[in-house]
């Protein structure tokens, strides 16, 4: 099992047997060959290529216009990919390309076409100064518009003809309807923005035939914005992306409008000024002016810690401190990667208490009494005092360890074995297992082997069982004393024991698109008379891969975090969705990776829920108060 593949890379634990250039060259090639090609990336490429085929080939074959893809293809990618050959061919097959037009005239055509459109929907991202990115979905039809904030439970509907606006607080189901003469759709209407830009000089963007750049445009209620870039669809000449920005450090901002869908009928209910059923009138929800010309204020009440991506979050026993294991976002350029860190925050003051470098560590664990933290750096297990973060004991392992879990009494540390990487020292062969370590002595107590990498590990609150699963399943219930596998359960990925030891919750998901995705099975542990229960997340949204599960302290609610950025609270009895928290963002904005929620952890007193996501925040929620967020922002 430990045989190394010929030419594989040397690890610090294996002295190099041959340092010749050929061997090192082969080692580098082995490393490259071991790089997996993500299935979702293949699917993205294929999906994009099919659209390209429809655009490039289908017209010649007489495919009806309705068969062609919607006009939201990211043209930037097309423009970027236009090499000399492609451009030459394009010149042959597409007569009259933009390169031969005068930019101003071409842009005027864009504006006219946009004005002629009956409707448009698109997404927007706005960042003002150091503030958070505000994301929204927007619909515009004639003089009516709908503005749905993604980060904030807020919807605005405008009707310029009537001078009416409807404001909805979707978290608390409040509405406010008002009449005002001051409504401006500048922020929401791309056509208006284009028309304003057309009054100024517009120049083509070198090397990007379908892009225009406007200088010193006046939009968003502000004059002379230095830079506005408009990318248009090559065929329809309608915008696919608009970027408005000012890099002046005194007042930097950026607004990106993209994912445009032109001339699609808008559901009348979206633009209705009538409040939805069940909403209660409330005055002074927010002033419209602050929304249209300035960044949204932080939401209502709650708290956010802005940091790098939290891969793990732990509460101190008294609930006054949070410890986080943070890493860089997945989109970070590998050259810019910084070491993972363990950090502790004081919740009363919002201050960082300590920060320790744990480069390479992707997992950590905290004892139930909150005294010790454990992490693994390379092949070294580090036991730290949770109060100071200082290392108190270390020992080395012969295995590549992943998830960690302390026994309830804190005397034993269990660690999941994960061998699967191209640099794993097993020639890329997958393997897993569990090791038990005596925390006091650092001695290995027991080790069992499993056939797949152990990616998730949990210890039942009574200390009797360990549950281990891999991303590919199954879930194994293991006698924590003997190491014997007691039961093998269907499920994969995240798992959680209820506090009373009655239930083991397992995600039953598979790959994207699998019918089981987003489902959770509760397996009874007590006796054979109780049937497993099935819970389902995703109320009204496409289900997503679950990343973490946790029971509330009273075991009444199971909390599930997923890759869509949703945190779903489900009743253990009945499976009803109590609440869905969506403050970590949303995956629909195409260019960013989906901001999944990686971790959910209830506070010791059960009054607060901490969630950490790919958006680089830890958010604290009071589930009993409608999921309100953000009391204060700590940086």
């Amino acid at each position: 099992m430990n045989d190394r593949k010929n030419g594989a890379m040397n690890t610090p634990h294996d002295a190099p047997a041959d340092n010749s250039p050929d061997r090192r060259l082969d080692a580098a090639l082995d490393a490259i060959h071991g790089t997996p090609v993500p299935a979702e990336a293949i699917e993205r490429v294929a999906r994009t290529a099919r659209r390209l085929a429809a655009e490039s080939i289908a017209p010649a074959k007489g495919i009806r216009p309705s068969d062609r893809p919607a006009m939201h293809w990211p043209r930037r990618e097309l423009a970027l990919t236009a090499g000399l050959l492609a451009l030459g061919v394009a010149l042959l097959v597409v007569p009259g390309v933009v390169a031969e037009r005068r930019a101003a005239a071409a842009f005027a055509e864009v504006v006219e076409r946009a004005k002629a459109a009956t409707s448009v929907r698109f997404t927007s991202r706005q960042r003002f100064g150091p503030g958070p990115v505000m994301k929204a979905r927007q619909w515009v039809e004639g003089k009516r518009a709908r503005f749905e904030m993604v980060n904030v439970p807020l919807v605005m509907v405008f009707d310029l003809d009537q001078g009416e606006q409807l404001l909805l607080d979707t978290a608390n189901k409040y509405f406010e309807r008002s009449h005002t003469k001051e409504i401006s759709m500048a922020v929401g209407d791309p056509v208006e923005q284009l028309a304003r830009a057309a009054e100024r000089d517009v120049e083509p963007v070198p090397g990007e035939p379908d892009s225009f750049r406007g200088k010193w445009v006046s939009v968003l209620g502000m004059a002379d914005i230095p830079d506005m870039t408009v990318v248009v669809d090559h065929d329809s000449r309608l915008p696919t992306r608009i970027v408005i920005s000012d890099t002046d450090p005194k007042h930097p901002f950026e607004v990106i409008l993209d994912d445009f869908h032109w001339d699609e009928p808008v559901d009348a209910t979206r633009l209705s000024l009538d409040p939805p059923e069940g909403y209660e009138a409330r005055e002074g929800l927010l002033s419209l002016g602050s929304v249209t010309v300035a960044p949204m204020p932080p939401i209502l009440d709650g708290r956010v810690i802005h940091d790098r991506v939290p891969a793990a979050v732990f509460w101190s026993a008294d609930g006054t401190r949070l410890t986080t294991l943070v890493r860089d976002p997945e989109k970070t350029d590998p050259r810019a990667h910084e070491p993972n860190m363990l950090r502790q925050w004081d919740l009363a003051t919002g201050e960082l208490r300590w920060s320790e470098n744990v480069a390479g560590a992707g997992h950590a664990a905290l004892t139930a009494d909150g005294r010790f933290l454990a992490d693994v750096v390379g092949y070294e297990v580090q036991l730290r005092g949770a109060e100071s973060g200082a290392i108190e004991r270390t020992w080395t392992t012969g295995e590549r360890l992943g998830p960690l879990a302390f026994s309830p009494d804190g005397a034993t540390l269990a660690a999941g074995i994960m061998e699967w990487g191209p640099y794993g020292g097993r020639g890329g062969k997958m393997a897993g297992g569990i090791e038990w370590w005596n925390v006091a002595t650092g001695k290995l107590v027991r080790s069992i082997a499993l056939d797949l990498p152990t990616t998730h590990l949990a210890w039942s609150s009574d200390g009797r069982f360990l549950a281990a699963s891999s991303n590919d399943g199954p879930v194994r219930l293991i006698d924590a004393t003997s190491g014997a596998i007691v039961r093998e359960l269907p499920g994969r990925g995240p798992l959680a024991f209820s506090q009373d030891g009655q239930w083991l919750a397992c995600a039953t998901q598979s790959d994207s698109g699998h019918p089981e995705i987003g489902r959770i099975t509760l397996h009874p542990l007590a006796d054979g008379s109780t049937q497993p229960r099935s819970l389902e997340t995703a109320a009204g949204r496409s289900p997503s891969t679950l990343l973490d599960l946790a029971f509330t302290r009273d075991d009444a609610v199971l909390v599930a975090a997923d890759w869509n950025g949703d945190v779903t609270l489900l009743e253990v009895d009945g499976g009803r969705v109590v609440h869905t928290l969506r403050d970590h963002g949303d995956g629909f904005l195409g260019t960013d990776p989906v901001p999944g929620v990686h971790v959910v952890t209830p506070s010791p007193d059960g009054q607060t829920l901490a969630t950490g996501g790919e958006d680089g925040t830890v958010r604290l929620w009071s589930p009993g108060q409608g999921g309100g967020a953000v009391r204060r922002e700590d940086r």
Partner: protein
Amino acid sequence: MGEGDIDWDRFVTDHAERVLRIALRIVGRLDDAEEISQEVFQECFQVAAAQGIRDPTGLAVRLATVRSLDRLRRRRARPADGAELRDSDRVTAIGPVEEAEAKELTDWLRDAVARLPSRQAEVFALMALEQASREEVATLLGISPDAVSTALCKARNELGAALDRRSGGPMR
């Protein structure tokens, strides 16, 4: 075979993984590799529309190789990347020392391949990175199998010498 005979949907299904894999292995960054893959398909479609394609697979593989090498050369002024080597997350645990070693070596290799003469770089990329057979590479590049062997040998010698220089002298 003209483009009229090609089932493009099937073509995309059959070739998306290979095109992406070639690009990823050469450039090492997933975002770049995806962009190159789209460029490759776009070029295939445009060539098909303009003049027809006799061997769409060969064109896709060749374009994927050439465009990726182009990207690598454009990027050479900057330090090479290794997107496959992320800092660990919940499901990976690469030791920091190994990570640094692996990244350094693969970064170096990509940089060195970008410096090779075009033909050698193409042969090396197709044979050593994509692990295509000598005969397939010969067909793809329109050269004899012997010429493929020669180019591969020269490429490996050149890379070996570069490794020696990097290490401060021959280590054989």
